[in-house]
């Protein structure tokens, strides 16, 4: 009991400490040195209307590469942890399949989700959204049918191919810049007309790679966890 109160006291104290630190900061008026410089020049030098996308894929592109690698590492590690065991028997059609409403709903939603996912990915340089957000929608589209018809899950091998090739495509786009005497991950193909679908150079291509990779990766993770079955 005493340790519980001690732990609570610790958590409260830590929060109070953080609060007294952060309340001393100029809330609402941050210095934004690097941020303001990016806001000033991003539209001209990168050409994406969504400046967050410029930061994610151009200015801090290697962060995003690291982030993709972390997802890949997590999915690989989950495979390493879960993969070794014999599969729990897949629930048979009677007890695993969804009802009429779920099955029809999924059939209707599946194409819609795919369209929305790709829309969000391909407009990532123009509107809020992008490869990560769209990729999650794609993963949902892939996993939803498994709820309705557990026997029809996407093939893990296909997902692995998509995931590997999309990741390689991201790096290959970065390496292509080296051939033109630029640094790694420099956006190519010119900035284009601000606000057009075909603008911002290679950024939409990079986001497509990100979206496919995130979608495949998350779908693989979710399917892997779902395979464990109820109350493993």
């Amino acid at each position, binding site marked *: 009991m005493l340790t*519980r109160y001690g*732990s*609570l006291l*610790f*958590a*409260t104290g*830590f*929060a109070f400490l*953080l*609060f007294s630190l*952060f*309340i001393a900061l100029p*809330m*609402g*008026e*941050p210095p*934004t040195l690097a*941020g*303001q410089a*990016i*806001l000033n020049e*991003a*539209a*001209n030098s990168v050409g994406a*209307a*969504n*400046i*967050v996308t*410029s*930061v*994610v894929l151009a200015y*801090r592109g290697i*962060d*995003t590469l690291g*982030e993709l690698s*972390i*997802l890949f590492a*997590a*999915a690989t*590690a*989950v495979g*390493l*942890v*879960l*993969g*070794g*065991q*014999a599969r729990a028997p897949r629930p048979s059609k009677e007890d695993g399949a969804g009802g009429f409403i779920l099955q029809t709903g999924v059939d209707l939603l599946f194409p819609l989700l795919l369209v929305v996912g790709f829309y969000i990915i391909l407009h990532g340089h123009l*509107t*809020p959204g992008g490869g*990560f957000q769209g990729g999650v929608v794609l993963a949902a589209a892939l996993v939803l049918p498994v709820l309705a018809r557990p026997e029809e899950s996407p093939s*893990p091998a296909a997902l*692995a191919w998509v995931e590997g090739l999309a990741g390689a495509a991201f790096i290959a786009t970065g390496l292509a810049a080296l051939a033109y005497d630029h640094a790694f991950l420099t956006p190519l193909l010119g900035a284009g007309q*601000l*606000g*057009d679908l075909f603008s911002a150079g290679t950024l939409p291509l990079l986001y497509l790679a990100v979206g496919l990779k*995130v979608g495949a990766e998350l779908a693989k993770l979710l399917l*892997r*966890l779902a395979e464990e079955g109820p109350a*493993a």
Partner: protein
Amino acid sequence: MSEFGLVALLVGALGLIAIGIAGLVLARNLFRLVLALAVAEAGANLLLVLAGFRQGASAPIIEGGSTLHQVAMVDPIPQAMVLTAIVIGVGVQALALALAVRAREAYGSLDMDQLRARMEADIIAAAGTAPTTSQEAPSGARPLPPPLPSPARIAAEEPSS
């Protein structure tokens, strides 16, 4: 946004972090531990977005295809950082859950204290040392198990994909 609103957001972010950390130190159930971590990470992410907020500024998206009208925009860098932080959090939580599933299968429990005790017992058994309670007893007296225990399951399985 008013000064009051900003402070409220700050208190909210720090409150989430505090709740998460309290959960991490208090909870014993593995699943709750992962949830506590998720709550704390949400708080840290909110804090990060707050660090880029500017009074009266708009979202960093240029509308209408023109760079001429220069409205004040919030800092885009923390927004990109939050995106990264969220994805990292998702990956780590998935991994932690997978480990929890396997731990529960092996030891039949999700209680951290019990699991820890079982782990210690396993380590001691694998190493062949006397348990810590009898540290003064001669440690070579017991029959020793083979030096490396074969892993509990290296079941036949599909080629790793």
